[in-house]
């Protein structure tokens, strides 16, 4: 749990610092962070498919894989159209480092303990990503189409968050 909170805080802090210090992210960097954030959720879902036996959790993981793949496809199509090459940066690297820690923690768990830990992380992760998209990536995007694309994925992120919260309740009742 500490890990999730630390991670969520880090993203929120990044968004807050951005408002104060304004460390400019280029559109190429925004695109890179967007792809990484989606890929991380796909990777965690793959882990869930390996380790979970709960039908509802497995179905949720499948939806995460399909939806986040669709978003990456949209983002890749757009950067190609715009002639932008996604560029690695500190925000993306931090995301990857935190995701690796989460994955290591999840690998130590199995059964219902895994399900709970995975779903708890999905709740925290989607909250953090929504606040990063709205508070950092959208304001940092110069290109209108990139901004619109980021805006258009927020409803899906919110639906994922609600879905994860629904599962969280369900798992905690058991």
């Amino acid at each position, binding site marked *: 749990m500490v890990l999730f909170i630390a991670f969520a805080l880090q993203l929120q802090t990044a968004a807050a610092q951005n408002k104060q210090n304004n460390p400019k992210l280029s559109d190429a960097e925004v695109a890179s962070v967007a792809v990484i954030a989606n890929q991380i959720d796909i990777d965690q879902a793959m882990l869930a498919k390996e380790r979970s036996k709960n039908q509802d959790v497995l*179905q949720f993981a499948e939806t995460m894989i*399909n*939806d986040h793949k669709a978003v990456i496809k949209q983002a890749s199509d757009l950067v190609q159209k715009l002639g932008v090459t996604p560029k690695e940066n500190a925000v993306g690297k931090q995301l990857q480092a935190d995701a690796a820690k989460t994955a290591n923690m999840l690998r130590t768990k199995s059964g219902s303990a895994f399900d709970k830990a995975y779903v708890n992380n999905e709740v925290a992760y989607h909250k953090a990503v929504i606040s990063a998209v709205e508070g950092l990536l959208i304001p940092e995007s110069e290109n209108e189409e990139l901004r619109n694309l980021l805006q258009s*994925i927020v409803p*899906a992120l919110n*639906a994922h968050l609600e*879905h994860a919260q629904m599962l969280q309740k369900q798992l905690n009742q058991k």
Partner: protein
Amino acid sequence: MKTLKLLPVDLSLFGLLLLCTTFTPVAGVQPTVHTIRISQMQFNPATLTVHKGDTIVFVNKDIVTHDATEISGKAWKSPALASGDSWRMAATKSAAFYCSFHPVMKGKIVVK
């Protein structure tokens, strides 16, 4: 000239169409086709009122794949609708439905 000659016919046809859609359908009138648009993770309209025998078309205008599943999971279920896909069904009974991929997405069909 050709256009002018055809115009009165077109207008009367148009009037006939208006009559059909404005007044309560009587026996022999074509059933109406209604569209439920899926976009931004929502069914739109979320509640649709139709007459028995009308056609309902679900159109997915979203980025991600959705479906429409009758709430009990037993009466009917659309196939997975990828972005741009659509699926039609005949309205026979009122039903609540949801998206099986995103259970927070819900809708209702009211058959009068």
